[in-house]
């Protein structure tokens, strides 16, 4: 095996499911949960469904054609559309369907085996209070201590179906429903997600319910889509530093990361050298190769509670600090680290810059090296908490690259009507989906060690040596009565000052509440077929 095969391995493009890489990226998505009742029929269903699973090869090629038309038209193509299907299995599903599970059991991620509802308050800081919808015992899907055939239990099988057109999606759902009945699978979960432009406001395309452009920062993935020497999965930025100590970037300014960090069986990122990869020390059983773990987290967003918090804090900032020009938009940008358009504070600290926000070649080209105090991007900003980029954390910047995940989420629920308070009570939020080679080392690490932590990944220089504070967007804090806090650092006449932000005293402390989800494994196409024979 040559060094190139390690750094840029040839990906098995017909084996890897397409939502892992490159991602469906559709306006409409549905999650379908099945419970297995008749095991032998269910195994036959696996043989059937294996023919309907969309692969990396198909999605990658479609996306290229789609992009090509989009560039030509400078608008959304209506010439082509597709409907993709991917499949994932829960641990319970594996136990039902795989007779000799013990042969691969030791290779499975511990958190996957324990399940999201179990890890919820242990590792993710979710509410542990039976009166809260965020307590995993109350979840609408994947609830703790509920059997898989319970309407709120964790399905054995999760189908992720996505389409450019909602009509095509509905048609596919109907088809899958008939087939599920034929194979005696209980379909007890169906949840739709739509790009928010679906609700009639094109300006909300690509945004989440709080109004921010979402999904901007994704890792680039190394590897080749064929044996051709330079047929890379991810295009490379042309003019970039040759310094081997900083990550190589994709043409969109995304750090290139070894595919083994997302898909089992491929070389993994070197701990210290951002442009190097290593063979994984774990020799996975064949069944797991080309597979990935999927985290599905149903996150409710309470838009008005968020807005009330913003309003209250901005009033306090203006009253109690020298930041008299603080605006709600700026404060929101402080919490996120980007303006609503997606323009990063790091590059545009004073005001939003929609051109920058929509420029996918520029909006990710920044780090925090010139801002150790968090004067531009506060240390508690969501994007700085969950991706500290070049900041030294836990032994070096190499570790940050090893924590990246592939996010494939989509909003659910319609837009809140600011003039109609009752519209706020309808469920809405994000169907968070992420793919990674380890749930415990990546997804849970990011939430537990960074988002929820008050002092990691990085504390800023500050007058009183205060901690960075919690992530106010997705952070959970089970251990401090759910209170989250952080400090805005600023200068007045050249002197450093700080102002504390705290969620204390609010009637609603969480504007992002987990209301369901589960941990799943997304097997290769061969392994899906194999299940029918096991």
């Amino acid at each position, binding site marked *: 095996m040559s*060094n190139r095969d390690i750094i840029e391995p040839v990906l098995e493009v017909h084996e890897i499911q397409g939502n892992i890489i490159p991602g469906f990226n559709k306006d409409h998505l549905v999650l379908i949960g099945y419970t297995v009742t008749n095991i032998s029929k269910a195994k036959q269903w696996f043989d059937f469904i294996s023919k309907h699973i969309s692969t990396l090869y198909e999605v990658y090629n479609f996306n290229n054609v789609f992009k090509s038309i989009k560039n030509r038209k400078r608008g959304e193509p209506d010439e082509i559309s597709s409907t993709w299907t991917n499949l994932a299995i829960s641990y319970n599903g594996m136990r039902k369907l795989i007779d000799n599970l013990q042969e691969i059991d030791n290779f499975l991620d511990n958190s996957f085996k324990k399940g999201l509802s*179990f890890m919820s308050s242990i590792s993710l800081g979710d509410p542990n209070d039976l009166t809260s919808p965020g307590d995993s015992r109350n979840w609408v899907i994947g609830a703790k201590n509920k059997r898989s055939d319970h309407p709120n239990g964790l399905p054995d099988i999760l189908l992720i179906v996505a389409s450019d057109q909602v009509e095509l999606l509905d048609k596919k759902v109907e088809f899958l429903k008939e087939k599920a009945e034929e194979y005696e699978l209980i379909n007890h979960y169906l949840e739709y997600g739509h790009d928010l432009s679906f609700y009639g406001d094109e300006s909300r395309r690509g945004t989440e319910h709080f109004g921010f452009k979402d999904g901007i920062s994704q890792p680039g993935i190394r590897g080749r889509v064929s044996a051709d020497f330079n047929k890379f999965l991810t295009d490379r930025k042309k003019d970039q530093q040759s310094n081997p100590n900083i990550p190589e970037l994709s043409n969109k300014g995304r750090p290139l990361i070894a595919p083994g960090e997302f898909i089992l069986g491929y070389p993994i990122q070197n701990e210290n050298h*951002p442009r190097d990869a290593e063979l994984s020390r774990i020799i996975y059983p064949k069944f797991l190769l080309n597979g990935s773990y999927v985290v599905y987290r149903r996150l409710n967003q309470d838009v008005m509670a968020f807005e009330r918090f913003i309003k209250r804090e901005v009033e306090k900032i203006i009253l109690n600090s020298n930041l008299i020009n603080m605006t709600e938009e700026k404060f929101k940008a402080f919490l996120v680290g980007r303006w609503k358009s997606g323009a990063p504070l790091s590059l545009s600290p004073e005001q939003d810059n929609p051109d920058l926000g929509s420029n996918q070649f520029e909006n990710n080209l920044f780090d925090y090296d010139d801002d*150790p105090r968090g004067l531009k991007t506060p240390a508690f900003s969501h994007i700085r908490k969950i991706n500290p980029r*070049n900041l030294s954390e836990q032994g070096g910047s190499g570790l940050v690259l090893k924590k990246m995940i592939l996010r494939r989420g989509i909003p659910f629920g319609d837009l809140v009507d600011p003039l109609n308070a009752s519209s706020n009570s309808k469920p809405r939020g994000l169907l968070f989906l992420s793919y990674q080679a380890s749930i*415990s080392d990546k997804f849970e690490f990011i939430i537990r060690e960074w988002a929820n932590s008050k002092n990691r990944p990085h504390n800023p220089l500050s*007058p009183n*040596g205060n901690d960075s504070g919690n992530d106010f967007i997705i952070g959970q804090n089970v*251990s401090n009565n759910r209170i989250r806090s952080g400090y805005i650092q600023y200068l007045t006449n050249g002197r*450093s000052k700080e102002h504390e932000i705290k969620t204390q005293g609010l009637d609603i402390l969480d504007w992002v509440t987990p209301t369901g989800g589960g941990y799943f494994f997304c097997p290769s196409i061969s392994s899906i077929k194999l299940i029918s024979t096991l």
Partner: protein
Amino acid sequence: MSQVREFNPPANIKDFPIGSDLYKEWNSYLTDSFSENIASLITDIGLQGHEITFFDPRFIPNGDHLTQSVPWNGFPKALALRHNKPEAYRLSDKLATFGFKDDLGSTRGAKYSDMEGRNPLLWNYRQQDEYLEWAIFKDEVTGKIKEIIFTCEGPEYWEILSKDPQLLLRLYEKYTNNSIDQNDLYLEHNVYEVDENGNIVPDPVYKKGDYNRYNKWNMKYAIHLSHPSNTLGAEINLAAFSSVIRKNKDDIIITDASSLICCSAFGSPNRFSDPTIGGNVNSVSRNGNWVTLKDPVGLYIAEIDSSRFTKPDGSIISDFTERYWNVLRGSEDGSMILRVSLNVPEGETHNGEQLLLGDLLVNGQPLNYGGQVAETITMKLFALAVTGGPSSTPKYCQQKCCKDLEYPNLDNIVDIKKACPIINPIQSTSNTQLEFNMDIIETSFKTRSKIDSRFNK
């Protein structure tokens, strides 16, 4: 210079009164450490005096004062890089012996003996090298862990306490809850190094009457840090040398933590602590500030992530920190913890039996090793920055990192002029080459901890 004052003991602990002989000793030790390191920046690195951003924290320059709390994880990263997680946990609780290769991949110190080699001394240290060490206590009947004591106190402070044998004895007895013979804490004879051929090196490395850092009570109760790299001297040295602004051969300023530690060799690149601390200090320095360690200089336990512990049935433990996490030494405001005991209070039962620490789950897994708990602990130190620091000419690297042949995720520091061994991912590794690289790490370690050597000789 806006302030002139004295050094306080770690966490402002009050083992001896201000102005006492021990207080003066402590001040003298830190004064020397800072001044020797600052001098080394001139002699070893070639900085001009006016370029040095690192300063003695007793003399704070004029400017805006800012503090940075630098956090890192307490579990030895090098073990996690070398072994799978369950094995790394198990090894983290195991003692290592001087003169033999430890599970972190290093051979520390040498084989020791008393006069004429009559009695080989198998001295132990804890292979926990993130400035956090622990001792575990098991229930005699069930074999389950019932208590874990964590410490992050540098040995130098206890060397100073040892100048007052009564005080030292009193503190040891307090923290071991045992009656102790004073002779257990001091060497009863000279200690000699045994060379590779089995011969005694004539000059003793430790003298009769010296405080014995590796005494059995420290090893059993984790009174203070024992790993040779876990010293306050190393912390000061690390802060001083990481303040130097570095550039690579293409004259580009080095900003990433991994490259900085390889370039300056101020610690081990395979730890959570050293690159993180160095990276932060360097960032402060290269952003135009003066930088130092804030008084009271020390390494501290910041917090334990209580949410990761559950009862055997997976249920949440309420008030975990209040009831299970007992701070034994630290600052009055709780912000700087030096010594802490984790245990389940007497009378707390599960299924009618006394609940033990070993009954709990960490991250859903049974608590079998202290390392599992160490992984939930965040450590910290405090860096002090003052705006308006001097401009400094960036220096080229004197060292670099080569990937370890056997463990490519580990880095070994070598001289900048040396070629890195070529790694063939398929062929097995050469043990000879591996030993060679380990020697380099040892050499580097010895260089950086020379400040600390006063206690070893």
